[in-house]
């Protein structure tokens, strides 16, 4: 396994180095917040999740030891678990059924502001497991191996989630485009 680029920084945070704390926040907060915003579709809730994630980082930094996962994967897992807690509370679970295949050429023309909103809503409309797979690989730019490790599934299972998730998104976006 390759070296963890965050390992030394986490060790310094665990030792109580204030400069390391600042560096870690600057390095990880944008990623954690982006992950939570896209998972929850709610900026305020996502900020709460980001704060809770960092509280757990401070609590565990001293005892954190690299096992099978990198530190970045671990904080993604923590963030996702906190997002799931909130999704459960909201009872916004959706079915994991596969939508029908659509031709992406039928997707409506791009208008950045509207498209962003439609994609945000479409992401909230697909199954959470598909959503997290897409977010990790597409937006968080994790490799397939890192994303699979974070989701604690095989690479094959990850690919399946990604394919089904993208297909679901295409279906929702094409339907929304047709409704307009």
């Amino acid at each position, binding site marked *: 396994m390759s070296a963890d680029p965050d390992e030394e920084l986490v060790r310094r945070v665990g030792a109580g180095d204030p400069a390391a704390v600042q560096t870690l*926040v600057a390095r990880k907060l944008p990623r954690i917040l982006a992950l939570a915003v896209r998972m929850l579709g709610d900026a305020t809730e996502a*900020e709460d999740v980001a704060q809770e994630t960092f*509280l757990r980082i401070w609590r565990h930094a001293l005892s954190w030891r690299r096992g099978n996962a990198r530190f970045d994967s671990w904080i993604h897992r923590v963030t996702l678990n906190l997002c799931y807690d909130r999704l459960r509370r909201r009872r916004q679970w959706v079915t994991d059924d596969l939508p029908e295949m659509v031709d992406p050429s039928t997707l409506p023309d791009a208008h950045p502001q509207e498209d962003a909103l439609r994609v945000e809503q479409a992401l909230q409309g697909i199954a959470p497991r598909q959503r997290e797979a897409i977010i990790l690989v597409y937006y968080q730019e994790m490799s397939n191996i890192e994303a699979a490790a974070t989701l604690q599934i095989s690479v094959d299972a990850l690919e399946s989630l990604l394919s089904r998730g993208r297909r679901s*998104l295409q279906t929702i976006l094409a339907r929304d485009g047709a409704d307009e």
Partner: protein
Amino acid sequence: MGKGKTMAEGSRNEPAMDAKRFAALAAAYGGDLRRWPEAERMAGAVFAASEAGQAILRHAGTLDGLLDSYRVEAPGKILHGAILQAAGRHLVQRRRQRFWWLGLGLAGIGLAGAVAGLALVSIVTPEVQPDHYVLDANATAFGDAGPDRDTIEEDL
């Protein structure tokens, strides 16, 4: 598309990729090969040059374009500051806890030392005979001067 074009030659270290696998990867990871599994990127790039590869990537790229439009704002200063403040509080609390545990540890060591010292003193110090002791009312310097048991039995 001819049969020969569905199978692209891979690099020396990678197996060639067929259209089915190429399409499966594009369906999962999208049209940007940088997101594809590293082990299959090279073979994918070779196939991407083909007509079929171009069509598959265009197909996947439509959704990629929409996904790209969804950007998230950078964290605000208030959130950033709140997280750093919480970290500061946590560090202070941990220092206090460490100090408290250190004090407790020292007290424990002191207590253990005192107990060990007492135990040692009780073992090492010889038993001190008392200067005097209260004699039994029936005892004399020559022994027990109480009524003789045999005599008592005879009297009976």
